[in-house]
């Protein structure tokens, strides 16, 4: 007898949360075979599992290795489900450019934030690491993004963040974008000092902050 939708959704979530890629992928195939709605399988299955993993990361039960393997399981299952998404479900996402500022190549944190923003439904354009400051602005304009996420682990490159905000000011386009910053040496007070819109101290709070920024903007 075929399993219920709830059981399949639970396996999608559990596969992601329990670092079990095989389970997540098998559940994704099962969802497709059962004719389940792909969008629902993603949002009520995979995303639930990834959010739960994010919560455990926040609570220091999961760490970087665990979160990476959860995201591998999620993306593997997503590959199975994505071809079955209806066009209408793909909707218009809020665009976001993200990268590690010039002078720094530490990108673990940036990659985690990218995964979590992707899960949360942002359209993420990843510029990578050691990114020239002007590239953030160029890419944001080119992709019509509304969110610019800047990361650095080094005190020597923090000033690059302020420079980007200043460049936005000078071009007179500051109000078109929300700027969110994070990384080892970054603090809320530094974010306020340089006029960033948001500060996040880890990948799961980044999603919260980003979502709040646009909730406020919409209100």
């Amino acid at each position, binding site marked *: 007898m075929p399993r219920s939708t709830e059981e399949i959704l639970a396996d999608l979530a559990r596969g992601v949360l329990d670092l079990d890629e095989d389970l997540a992928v098998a559940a994704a195939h099962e969802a497709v075979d059962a004719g389940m709605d792909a969008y629902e399988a993603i949002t009520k299955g995979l995303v639930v599992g990834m959010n739960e993993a994010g919560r455990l990361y926040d609570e220091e039960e999961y760490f970087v290795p665990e979160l990476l*393997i959860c995201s591998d399981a999620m993306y593997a299952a997503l590959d199975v489900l994505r071809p079955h998404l209806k066009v209408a479900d793909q909707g218009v996402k809020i665009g976001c450019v993200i990268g590690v500022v010039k002078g720094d*190549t530490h990108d*673990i944190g940036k990659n985690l934030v990218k995964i979590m923003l992707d899960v949360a439904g942002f359209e993420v354009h990843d510029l990578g690491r050691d990114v020239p400051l002007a590239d953030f602005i160029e890419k944001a304009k080119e992709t019509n993004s509304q969110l610019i996420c800047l990361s650095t682990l080094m005190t*020597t490159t923090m000033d690059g963040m302020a420079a980007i905000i200043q460049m936005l000011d000078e071009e007179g386009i500051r109000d078109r974008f929300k700027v969110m910053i994070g990384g080892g*040496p970054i603090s809320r007070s530094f974010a306020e000092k340089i006029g960033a819109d948001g500060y996040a101290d880890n990948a799961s709070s980044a999603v919260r902050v980003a979502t709040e920024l646009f909730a406020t903007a919409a209100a």
Partner: protein
Amino acid sequence: MAVTEVMSSVGDSWPAAHSDPESMARLVLGMVDLAGVENLGAPFCMTIEAEGMGATVDLGSAETEPRVTEYAIAGLSAIDDLAAFDVRGDRAATAAEATRLLVAERPDLPMIACVTGPISLATSLVDPLIFYRAMRRDPSAAHALLELSADAAIAFGDALVGAGADTVCIADPSGTGEIIGAKAFREFALPYINRIVDHFAARDVHSIVHICGDVKALGGVLGEVSAPVISIDSNVSFRTLRALAPDHASMGNVSTYLLEYGKAETLRRVAVNRVLEGVDIIAPACGIGPRTPLANIRAVADVVATAQDWEGAERELRSVAVGR
């Protein structure tokens, strides 16, 4: 560690000084003479071992440190392709020669050999995302790479100790409790860090282990670090350090952000507080930024220089600015 004000006074500068022993030595002496730092230390960066094993390094600028721009191997299956770290390589030899010059010039000061911790080196040789996954999925490959990384740290440390260094500082910013958790730290970081520490201890060379981030995530594992000195980040209190590692001497933890952007008077107060809290060695909490004003480092050094005269300050204090 060097700041731009010292670079202009001395007439030597990053990035050239990373490949020139005399220039490197003059900058270190400049930090001593002009900033009041009470120790010598070399090299300035954490890329020499990785470069020696095949990673591509950009030496950066006067204001940014050298960094790895291309990993040595694409995946852990290529681990056999890694070059063994050769201490005769150009930049390793530069650091050793700078050490010789420094010890000859100032034999009265501690000379610290700065080596890269095992997880930080492993994640400079292969993409960190590959390495961190392997800790879960292919632990034997992760261990194999860590063995090679510890070998490199020991070889580099031996070369610097051979040149006259009397202390080794092992910094492992990529292997913190916040990134990998206490359980993985015990399995993947601690055995290799301790192997390096014990190697030098057997040669009467003491080690300092610098742990970035919040050490609370490590819990009691921290106390198992076999080095006599643990250096901590600015977001950790010495009370926490003492609770977790009561038998270790403490080092730290003046915020590098404050050092770069704060006022000298604030730095002076922070340093006084560290002394009152019973710190054994005052140091920056992390790598110091090159644009840090000399006056701010001086403010900290001045407190240390006078602290021994304070009533009640019984501990012997040394200020060490190991931050690279």
